């Protein structure tokens, strides 16, 4: 019987070796999104946003036509939600639980397809790349904060039911990659109190009123934040990550729940992958 176990263990070890080899392997020869063969050594200058050239993973995983198709949020009109056009939602709302939001891309049909491929089809291979796409938005946020960084990263939770069905939380995965790049840790602060129906079927008013009580912070993280605030003697800066910002009600509700739980000891900045 023991020999069987040794075999099983060695198989596992081999698997791990395989995985590590995969990490060392050169960039994939085909585009992660469209699966077309990618040509190496192409000049990709000017395809990346904000004049930041350092998105090596993105450049390595996409072909130039997919890279070109990304509608980066270059122009920011609304200082609150980072939208490229004038924004009624933000001017209407006087009190806000979060500071500002910045999004990486505009949610156009192509981006909708990418997100669907990841979120609904379950192509988890895309997660690191989507995470990296959010990096410029985080840098922008940081610049607007005056160069100060965050204390930790957190994410918008999904319901238990959705988690069982999908197997992963897209916001959590993206947050994980962002945190890795920024050298921060991810803290799970929130949980969803109930399974709300699809947000996209609801009106604006419904979304805002329902979202208020949708999230709750657990005791442990509440204590964690309070203690951290006490130790550092200042408010705790938190980066909240989500995949998409539509009306901002989800971000608002999460930020609200964190503020409630921590007794106002937190400043919440929101980074979302897409702005619709």
């Amino acid at each position: 019987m023991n020999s069987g176990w040794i075999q099983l263990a060695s198989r596992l070890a081999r698997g791990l070796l395989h995985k590590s080899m995969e990490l060392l392997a050169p960039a994939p020869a085909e585009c992660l999104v469209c699966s077309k063969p990618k040509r190496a050594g192409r000049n990709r200058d000017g395809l990346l946003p904000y004049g930041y050239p350092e998105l090596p993973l993105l450049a390595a995983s996409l072909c130039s036509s997919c890279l070109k198709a990304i509608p980066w949020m270059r122009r920011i009109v609304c200082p609150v939600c980072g939208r490229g056009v004038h924004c009624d939602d933000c001017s209407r709302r006087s009190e806000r639980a979060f500071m500002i939001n910045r999004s990486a891309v505009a949610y156009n049909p192509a981006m909708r397809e990418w997100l669907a491929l990841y979120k609904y089809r379950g192509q988890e291979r895309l997660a690191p790349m989507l995470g990296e796409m959010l990096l410029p938005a985080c840098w922008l946020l940081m610049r607007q904060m005056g160069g100060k960084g965050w204390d930790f990263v957190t994410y918008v939770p999904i319901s238990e039911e959705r988690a069982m069905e999908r197997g992963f939380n897209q916001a959590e995965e993206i947050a994980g990659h962002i945190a890795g790049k920024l050298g921060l840790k991810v803290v799970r602060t929130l949980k969803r109190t109930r399974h709300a129906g699809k947000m996209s079927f609801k009106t604006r008013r419904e979304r805002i009123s329902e979202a208020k009580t949708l999230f709750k912070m657990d005791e442990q993280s509440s204590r964690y934040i309070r203690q951290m605030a006490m130790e550092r003697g200042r408010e705790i800066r938190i980066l909240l990550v989500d995949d998409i910002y539509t009306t901002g009600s989800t971000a608002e509700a999460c930020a609200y729940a964190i503020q409630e739980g921590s007794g106002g000891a937190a400043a919440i900045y929101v980074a979302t992958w897409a702005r619709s």
Partner: protein
Amino acid sequence: MKGNVYLLLRQGGWEARATIAPEVDEAYWFGRTAAKQEEDCPSRQGRREESCGGDAVEAWLYKEELPWGQACLAADLWNSQQRGAAGRAGPGRQHPFQRLARLVAELQELDGRRQSPGIAREARQQLACRWGERSRGAAVSEETAGLAQLAAGLLQGRALLGCEARDLLVGAAGPGAGSSWSGALQLLSLLGQARLAGAVAAGDGGRRAAGELRCRRCGSGGVCLRRTRCYACGRMCAYCEACLMMGRSRECELFVTGVYTPSDAVGKLFCDQARMGRSHNISTGKAWGLSPAQEAAAAQALHFIELKLQQRSVMDASGVVSTNGEQPQPCPDRDFSHDQQQTVPVRHLGQDQLLKTSTRSSLKQHLQPHSLISRFTQKLFSSLLPNREEWAHYFLLWAVTGAGKTEMIFPLVETVLARGGRVLIASPRRDVVIELDPRLRKAFPEASVVTLYGGSEQRWERGSITLSTTHQLFRFHQAFDLVVIDELDAFPYHGDPMLHYAAGKCGLPGGPTVLLSATPPREMQAAAKSGRLAHARVPVRFHRHPLPVPRLVASPPVAVMLAGRKAPPVLLKALRESIQRGAQCFVFVQRISQTEGMAALLAKALPCRHVAATSSQDPERAEKVKRFRACDIRVLVTTTILERGVTIPRSDVYILDADGRLFDEASLVQMAGRAGRSADDPFGRVAFFAKERNESQLRAVRHIAGMNKAARRQGYLR
């Protein structure tokens, strides 16, 4: 998805089983309704008696829910350990359940979930739940039993993910089935009518614990699998990227395969007929209006199918094919070889071939020692020399373009249908499937035809004829008496091991598969020529005129034409002549980007204005082909996308850059096959325009000329 493992003591000893609904198992083995359940499913009399209720003595359920893949693995490992231990001194003093608990703990430790594998004895006791005397009251609800009965019919021959099976049952039985579907499936699996496994599992779907992980649905392994953290089962769970577009197959996902039991008549009637020596092929051929060449080939295929179905029914009767969906042992070919040589007029193993086979087997024996290098060479050799059994169930119908392949399969379909069998006709191309649908419905008005492609309405229906794209075959498992694969060398089927796997598992084990092609891949041609692959060649078109042989014309490359904005006079002259004689012109180029430019160039230079370009990227492709067919467009510049499936009555074909990398022999033959397809205009013109004469062009010309020669020799030409 999660599941449980339990140990069951029966007269044969202990065995471990995985379940998705333990309460159903408890009721099945010990409950008082066990006997009643049996009546619900009247089939499979013999099996049920040995397996059901009666002889179960006691059972121990491991109460903790495990990830489904892990539950299956634990049960298999336990069983294989048990088997191993039986051969040795004795299974040891430990209680079987203790061994199970330790096994599970060890598996969890491998996942890094639990720090200490040796959990205390008391803790283990808490995980145990004993079934026995006290379980007498357990019962399967009426609802579950009813749903199981419904599911047995719906799942026949299906291979579905858990979520697909749930959708199917909820769709058929209403939303009430949402809660009892897993119970129903578990009951079916206990009754041997379905098999539940992990969608991504090692070896044979968890039957054997050995081997690397593979996707059960598409057969992919290795780099196609990716491990991620999974909320549904709580571990690092592998999913298959290769068949992601058909729904996600992962380790903790349920994979349901429903057992299809063919009607006894399928094989038996064939036996009787073979015994009586009645040959019905000639009458059938006449009834379908086949030409002599078509008829001869169809007759050969018919004989082959007859033989294979007969063999299978013998195998069934002798119990070689196990009913729970496992692969059968290959039927010893020798038993039938005598029979085969008498009845089937196909080519057979020549002396030299026999010599080769024996060399191979001795080579294999020689390489038996289990060193890494020798195993590698063994693998290499076996891939170089595909063995004879590999092709044993295949029949290649090698018919030239425009030979009328579809008509030839009608008698084959008819003969299987007449005996209550089920037929699958698969093509890699969606357009072909959609085009075949009305033709089949017209030919078999009595039969139920189900047409499957991405987005088809009939997704969950089951008919006696299933018409499907090769991608949809993933959702079938040993479901058809006869499998026909059209255009097997077309993209994406050719060169995609995933689709080959799907096509290989959708027929009943040992059942016949007929392959149709005008340009079979070279290894298949070699197998056919050497006699390893039974085949029939149809070297002539249905109108009995020879195929147009391509002319080789020297011309500059398309890139030069486009750069100089000038088409060579030879091309323009040829096109003008074609237009004058009232023919439609196909102009093939290599690149999508060249189509528009070339069309503009030709439009300027030609007397007629109706020049258009299309490609796979063109949203109006279908519309343009329609206009081309209606003579609204006279010259159509296109890529290999139109190399097959398009039949234009009076057409000429001009292939530019015929020496290009993307045009191989098969592609050139197919494109040339667009010309002269109708009986009104059988002598279409074909020309290869290229700077150089390369091997592909010459081979294509030889291929076409060779077919014409064979047709003439056999007297098929008019």
